């Protein structure tokens, strides 16, 4: 067998294809809207220090309605202030940093663990596969939120604990996807070629199999990111969220929702922010899937 002819597609080509699929996104209107929403929040998060009109934790002028003017500085509270007088717009802008830091971080860690487990299970098979699959099945049988609540309420809420809890609950799902992809890909010619070349198992798993499994994984990651954002929001809403006073959308909603009847702006805007970001990721995932089906 000619080993050169059937080796894995060159990496540069892979990168080019990834870029090309991004431009392909133009063909999906839904995907474009999603990408725009996500991009909007990412830009906001990156430029928060320059964009936010106020310090997000400064208690300035309680219960200001949207459009009210800060007496001391003359600046406007475009979205009003909360019960402690903190500017809601600034908190939403800074809060996008929090959520866009923790959600991707948690997802990324979950992916690292899930991919590792999945590759091992799918490529090595045998008892490794059996053990890992059983463990995954057991964790997946837990209703997710029940799991989060018990973990967070027992060990306490902190950024690290939320990342750990999300990894624990999501990694098995990712593992399942990677495993089934690996099961399929391990029989490809280029894998066989690498095996004949005498490459190590890890090299084959990470260099030959993983890059070729990326399509479905990217779609799944977008969906999962959306869900993780909701989860962090739910935890914040239940009072198990990230420690205050650093702005976090879920906690903002939780802190003000009892006042929503009299001051809807306090709760409405963070809800819109959170939903729009989740929507962005979901639409993006849909667009990507559409394109991958077309390919």
């Amino acid at each position: 067998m000619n080993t050169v002819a059937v080796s894995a597609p060159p990496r540069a080509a892979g990168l080019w294809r990834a870029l090309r699929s991004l431009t392909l996104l133009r063909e999906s209107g839904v995907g474009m809207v999603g990408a725009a929403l996500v991009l909007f929040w990412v830009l906001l998060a990156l430029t928060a220090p320059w964009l936010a009109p106020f310090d997000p934790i400064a208690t300035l002028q309680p219960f200001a309605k949207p459009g009210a003017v800060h007496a001391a500085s003359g600046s406007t509270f475009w979205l009003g202030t909360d019960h402690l007088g903190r500017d809601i717009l600034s908190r939403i802008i800074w809060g996008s940093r929090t959520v866009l830091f923790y959600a991707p971080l948690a997802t990324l860690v979950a992916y690292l663990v899930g991919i590792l487990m999945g590759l091992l299970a799918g490529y090595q098979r045998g008892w490794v596969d059996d053990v890992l699959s059983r463990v995954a099945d057991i964790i997946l049988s837990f209703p997710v939120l029940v799991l989060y609540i018990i973990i967070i309420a027992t060990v306490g809420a902190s950024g690290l604990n939320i990342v750990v809890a999300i990894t624990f609950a999501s990694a098995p799902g990712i593992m399942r996807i990677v495993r089934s992809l690996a099961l399929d890909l391990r029989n490809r010619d280029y894998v066989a070629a690498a095996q004949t070349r005498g490459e190590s198992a890890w090299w084959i798993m990470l260099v030959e199999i993983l890059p070729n499994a990326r399509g479905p994984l990217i779609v799944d990651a977008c969906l999962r990111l959306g869900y993780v954002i909701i989860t962090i929001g739910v935890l914040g809403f239940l009072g198990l969220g990230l420690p205050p006073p650093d702005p976090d959308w879920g906690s903002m909603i939780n802190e003000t929702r009892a006042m929503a009847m009299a001051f809807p702006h306090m709760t409405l805007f963070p809800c819109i922010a959170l939903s729009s970001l989740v929507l962005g990721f979901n639409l993006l995932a849909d667009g990507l899937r559409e394109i991958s089906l077309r390919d």
Partner: protein
Amino acid sequence: MLSFILKRLGFMAVTMLAVSLLLFLLLEINVESVATKVLGPYSSEEQRTLWLEQHGYFQPLYVRYFSWLGHFLSGDFGDSVRFKVPVAEMLWPRLANTAILAAAVFAVLIPLSLALGVLAGMREGSKLDRSISVFSIVTTSIPEFASAVFLSAVFVFWLAWLPGTSGMTAGFSFKELILPALVLILYDLGYVARMTRASMAEVMQTHYIRTAILKGLPYRQVILRHALRNALIAPFTVIMLQINWLLSGVIVVEFFFAYKGFGALLLEASLNQDIYLIEACAMVAVFVAVATQTLADIGYMFLNPRIRFH
């Protein structure tokens, strides 16, 4: 067939055991903290030591685990720390209430989401398909707590059409069921509809349906007689698995609307570190989840002849 069912049931038992061990370790490995939770913040060191001694907490961990498991299997879940009544007394009625809520949700969710999914999947890529898809994505993107806040702002405070809480304190009330059910339906609807759509679209691509259409059979007949039967197998599994999702959803909704259900009980138990109640609630939640999965697997086998003869 029988061996398949036995295998599934065996796996269920193993899962429950593993979960019980996990829970036990998470909540009871630190005996000092157990005593503080049970006796309260004002208890003295002596009281705690005495209590631990009386309740066998100085025995080795594995002895404690098996004795705990034994009690658990015989239906003795201990007493709630906060409410000071046997856990079982609180748990079953709450579970029944959640079942009522779930039944109401499914009664609307299943026909509605299947109808939307089938309509969308019948003609993939059509305007109807795209609008249904986008609608589904939007509803799944709005978390339950956000829709709960705004639905109650509109229907309770602004329009005053619906009662604000669903405690059913004056007996069963259909009106009180509407808001919690609506929030859950909105969130889950999109997901089930999209799954149905995918399955329907797949079936529509099969040779057998294409041939039927090419043969000139009436479209309506093809859909109703042939496509639906096959397309609904996948959503069946999805719906069974939806029970698992619903268990998460009811936590937020029941808490928000003060519905006396299982989810609110679990949340309040966790927030109050009511350990015996947490243990029982978590075990029940996992049992329900695992049992429905097992049922889904077995049911799927009955419905799908291709798997049966593997």
